[in-house]
């Protein structure tokens, strides 16, 4: 019992003195202090911390920069989209109202037409008929070549048919029939009808039954 009381008294004494060492004034007298160079290091660090300016980034955007940049981006994007949309609608309306629009559109879509061969004049037509008559024999001998040439000519005349004078074309057909080139004349007639479907063909140009 007395031992416990002694221990309590010791403890209370320690709480008052804050030192276990007898004969010493307190902890400060019992031990040592930090060396001077350690003091210098700490004080130098403390001085540097308040004398050196805080390291600032090269550029610090103000607080309002981000929202303003976002708003500007959205506005710009919206205006570009609106402008593109309005232009598209305006062009579409203009193309609907314009009378030449279908042709222009057709021109845009179709390839450029092959320039037609020059329209044959009457004199030239007769020369051509004569030449055809004189070379008929040679043409017969060279039938395959003539055939291919015929096809080429047919294609050329087909493309040229749209712009050829129908009366001149019919005269040419008649001349072919007169020269006895019925096959050529029939082919020309078919092309003529394809080019001018509403044109009434005179009986002279019709194939002989």
């Amino acid at each position: 019992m007395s031992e416990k009381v002694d221990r309590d008294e010791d403890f209370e004494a320690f709480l008052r003195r804050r030192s276990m060492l007898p004969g010493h004034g307190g902890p400060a007298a019992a031990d040592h202090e930090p060396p001077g160079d350690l003091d210098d290091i700490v004080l130098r660090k403390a001085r540097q911390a308040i004398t050196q300016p805080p390291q600032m980034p090269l550029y610090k955007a103000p607080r309002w920069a981000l929202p303003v940049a976002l708003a500007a981006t959205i506005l710009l994007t919206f205006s570009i989209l609106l402008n593109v949309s309005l232009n598209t609608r305006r062009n579409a309306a203009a193309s609907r109202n314009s009378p030449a629009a279908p042709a222009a559109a057709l021109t845009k879509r179709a390839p450029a037409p092959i320039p037609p061969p020059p329209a044959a004049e009457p004199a030239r037509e007769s020369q051509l008929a004569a030449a055809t008559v004189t070379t008929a024999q040679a043409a017969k001998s060279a039938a395959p070549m003539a055939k291919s040439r015929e096809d080429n000519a047919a294609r050329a005349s087909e493309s040229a048919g749209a712009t050829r004078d129908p009366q001149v074309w019919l005269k040419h057909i008649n001349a072919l029939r007169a020269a006895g080139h019925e096959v050529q004349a029939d082919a020309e007639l078919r092309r003529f009808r394809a080019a001018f479907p509403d044109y009434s063909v005179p009986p002279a140009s019709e194939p002989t039954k």
Partner: protein
Amino acid sequence: MTQDDDGELMLRYARGDMRAFETLYGRHRAALYRYLSRHTRNLETASDLFQEVWSKVIVSRERYEPRAQFRTFLYRIAHNCFIDYCRRTAVRHENSPAQEEDWEGSFPGPEQERPDARAEQAQMMARYRAAIAALPAEQRDVFLLYEESGLSLEEIASISSVGMETAKSRLRYAVAKLRAALGSDEPSTQAMPFPAPVQEPGT
């Protein structure tokens, strides 16, 4: 200027007053150094931790708010720095001969000029330090905080994250063991390490 002005000194230092810091540092440097050197029993380690503690004080000057005593703030940092040091190094406080020699030679007594008095004091200090080193880590921490920092038991309990009664109980046990060790002729020299950090389940 009284101890109560520590917080104000810290605020003045945060505003750029170096003299305020010098005053503050002068007040606490010795006790803090003793706290760390007794804990680590290695002057080099104590010096490193001492620098670390003051560096943290310097860095945290802008955030400092004098809600509690500056000493509480300072020794909380010191306590945490020491705990971190123990975890980093998984330190076991066995004293090497070189450390003991370093330790012994660094304590000049007030009666150093008298050889017999010096020998007597050195002997007592050796037993005292050995007895402190032999304390369980929690008891040693509470004891050193109480002896060196001048903090109340309530503040020490707050720093150690324990209740006040626990802190007082640890201190009572520490004092009893030190009393017993100082009264005996053969002080214990086996150091008691800080317990390893408790692993959370699942980690």
